[in-house]
């Protein structure tokens, strides 16, 4: 009998925990069929559930409630942590999780960004775990990926939302797109933050590729501006409307050691979806929308659940721990830059180069394109 421990801090409709736990208990659509979790029991510490949620989940015969985290981890084959509140990592909950899992031989997945200590040094969780949100795994329109070993020169990723949620998801998506480039991830050299009008001034000065920004915008299905008033499909970039539409814009210009420039740009007021455009050193362009299916089903989580089960069950890992470390350190750096109003930061951490042998993303179907 195989058992998965599922840790969470809160369980409410639409939360990450709800989206993934429900799928593990009841199944999820995968390639046109319904997939089911490979574990006989999915063990959940009872204190995170309210009675109504508990009753609903008990409709699945897989659910096993446990008194606490310690009991939940007894004899498990795999574990998942799906915190809904970032602050949970600073509470006794995270301490409990760590205590229970640090010596567990089971593989695990953190849906979100784990504490840096979990990824490095003596305190790291062993044997290993993966971390990630749905961003690297969801469908793309079109089904475009950066080819493995591509000599990438620049990528512009457009995301939306408040700090730090937009950045957390954005970095996850960004590393999913760039880590399999030629030479793998080489580490970071420098980070620059532009805010508000400085973003557009920076664009005029060539601090990031305007062509890639335009290409990324062209992939949206939800441009703002007159489109919201009368449906107009106007070229909001070409018409110079973007600076006026933008709200609380943040552009993170990240210089990598190998010369890649990654630009993470928040586009609230301009678009309401996530897109990217990238260019290789030989001039090839890649662009797509990172598709966010409608709520409440939000089937990005179906793709994520498939990725999680493939890793936990078959060790089909896509990212080494160094990737999670880089994700966490980038966010930590961004946090200090935001709070201390720092606009330019040399990367003073270890370079953390790493390679991956394949992209985390894959097209869902076998495309038939005669």
């Amino acid at each position: 009998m195989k058992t998965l421990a599922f840790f969470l801090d809160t369980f409410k409709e639409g939360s990450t925990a709800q989206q993934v736990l429900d799928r593990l208990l009841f199944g999820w659509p995968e390639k046109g069929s319904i997939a089911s979790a490979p574990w006989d029991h999915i063990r959940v510490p009872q204190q995170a559930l309210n009675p109504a949620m508990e009753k609903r989940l008990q409709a699945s015969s897989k659910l096993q409630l446990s008194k606490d985290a310690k009991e939940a981890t007894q004899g498990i084959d795999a574990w998942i942590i799906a915190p809904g509140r970032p602050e949970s990592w600073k509470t006794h909950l995270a301490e409990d999780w760590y205590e229970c899992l640090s010596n567990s031989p089971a593989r695990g997945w953190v849906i979100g960004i784990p504490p840096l200590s979990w990824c490095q040094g003596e305190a790291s969780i062993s044997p290993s775990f993966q971390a990630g949100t749905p961003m690297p795994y969801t469908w793309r329109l079109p089904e475009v990926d950066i080819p493995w070993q591509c000599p990438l020169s620049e990528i512009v990723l457009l995301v939306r939302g408040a700090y730090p949620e937009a950045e957390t998801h954005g970095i996850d998506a960004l590393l999913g797109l760039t880590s399999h480039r030629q030479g793998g991830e080489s580490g970071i050299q420098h980070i620059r933050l532009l805010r508000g009008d400085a973003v557009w001034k920076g664009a005029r000065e060539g601090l990031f590729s305007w062509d890639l920004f335009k290409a990324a915008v062209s992939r949206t299905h939800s441009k703002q501006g007159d489109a919201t008033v009368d449906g107009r499909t106007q070229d909001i970039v070409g018409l110079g409307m973007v600076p006026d539409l933008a709200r609380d814009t943040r552009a993170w210009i990240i210089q990598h050691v190998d010369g890649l420039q990654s630009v993470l740009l928040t586009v609230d007021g301009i678009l309401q979806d996530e897109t990217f455009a990238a260019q290789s050193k030989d001039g090839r362009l890649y662009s797509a929308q990172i598709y966010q299916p409608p709520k409440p089903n939000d089937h990005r989580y179906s793709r994520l659940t498939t990725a999680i089960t493939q890793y936990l069950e078959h060790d089909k890992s896509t990212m080494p721990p160094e990737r999670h470390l880089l994700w966490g350190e980038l966010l930590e750096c961004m946090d200090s830059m935001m709070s201390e109003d720092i606009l330019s930061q040399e990367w003073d951490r270890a370079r953390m180069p790493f390679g991956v042998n394949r992209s985390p993303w894959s097209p869902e179907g076998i495309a038939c394109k005669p």
Partner: protein
Amino acid sequence: MIQAPPYPCKHLEEGVSRRTFLEQLSLLGASSGILQLASTLQGSSMSQGAPKKVALLATEVRRHSHAQHFIDRLLEGYGWHGEHYFPQLKLVSLYVDQFPENDLARDRERRHGVPIYGSIAEALTRGTDQLDVDGVIIIAEHGQYPTNAKGQKQYPRYRFFKEMVEVFERSGRAVPVFNDKHYSTRWEECVEMVKDSYRLGFPLLAGSSLPVTWRIPSIDMPWNSDLNESVCVCYGGVDSYDIHGLETAQCMSERRHGGEAGVRSVHAMRGRKVWDQLASRTTTEQLLIAALNRSHQCRPASGGPWRPPSADWIQEACPNPVAYWIEHQDGFRTTLFMLNGLVQDFTYAGMHADGSILSCLMHLPMPPAHTTTADFFNPLSRRIEETIALEHATYPPERTLLTSGITLFAVESLYRGEVALNTPELNIRYQVGPRSSYWRG
């Protein structure tokens, strides 16, 4: 029987020869006189490089009406293959049938200087006595028009088309035409419209945006496959969204071995009968579930989280389903399910002879809930441009003749008390080429 020739699928990147066109016309059984006329008509090609001039005939232009989507894509461009693309068509004239309070036609006329003419003939001749455009786009969807006893809204597609044909005939010249959605609400009119295109030798593109929009996953039916059955699950009303669902299924089904063989019967039904009929159709039930598994907007049970849709929940969520059961001449079967209350998207599933199933979602990012610009009109706008630029319809008009006919006979079936109707009129045979036309770049 309407027998179309094998249909080479042309895209804008490709050329199409005048000889190929005339060969097709010859295969259609056109007389030598018509061929001569067609040859003359086709010979009057436009100068290379200059944008082709188009007229758009609309019922009404307001936010999110079909005409607004097409007009704005012509005037403002749209996202295509990683850039903001401006079509190589010049919208030079509009005819607008109705001007509601929230009309946008006059705003677009003022903003872009595209004149609105008082009649279709004037829009096509632009102050001359001859046809003075290189293409015509008919968007007769939305607006206030009477509904007949069968529940069909009497959109003036046929009237627009015939007034256009009159100009073509008077001018001794015909140009490519796009007709949005189904041809008309009377079968004889649908046939006449397609036959006019044969007779005068103008390329006719028609139908829905569903066949050309994104697919999730990005797949097409392998060409020449041994497909046995198709199912589309969608939502919406009779004589409205049903045509979209039928085109969703047909753009896949027509790629089967031997091509489309025509339809021999149509049986439409509502409510409990749908589930009773489904109970006797094992493969159709499998395909229904497979299609639902592709839905991104299948309503979860009791408003809760997503669950695999159970048979009980499907029936509870959708107490008044509508289904069209369609038998083709070659034994192939198509079923359209309109499951209002359960789904809000369009999904497809098809079964091959070995029982394997191919399924996908036809992605329709509908404004205002999910998008702002209804970008499923982008690929259709592109296909229209191809048709006008290449003077060759990207896919055959017979597809939409068949789906128009199925729609009309399904409406008739419901009107007559949900009886099965034999449809010798729908003995429409056509073939498509292997190339795919949906949005994938």
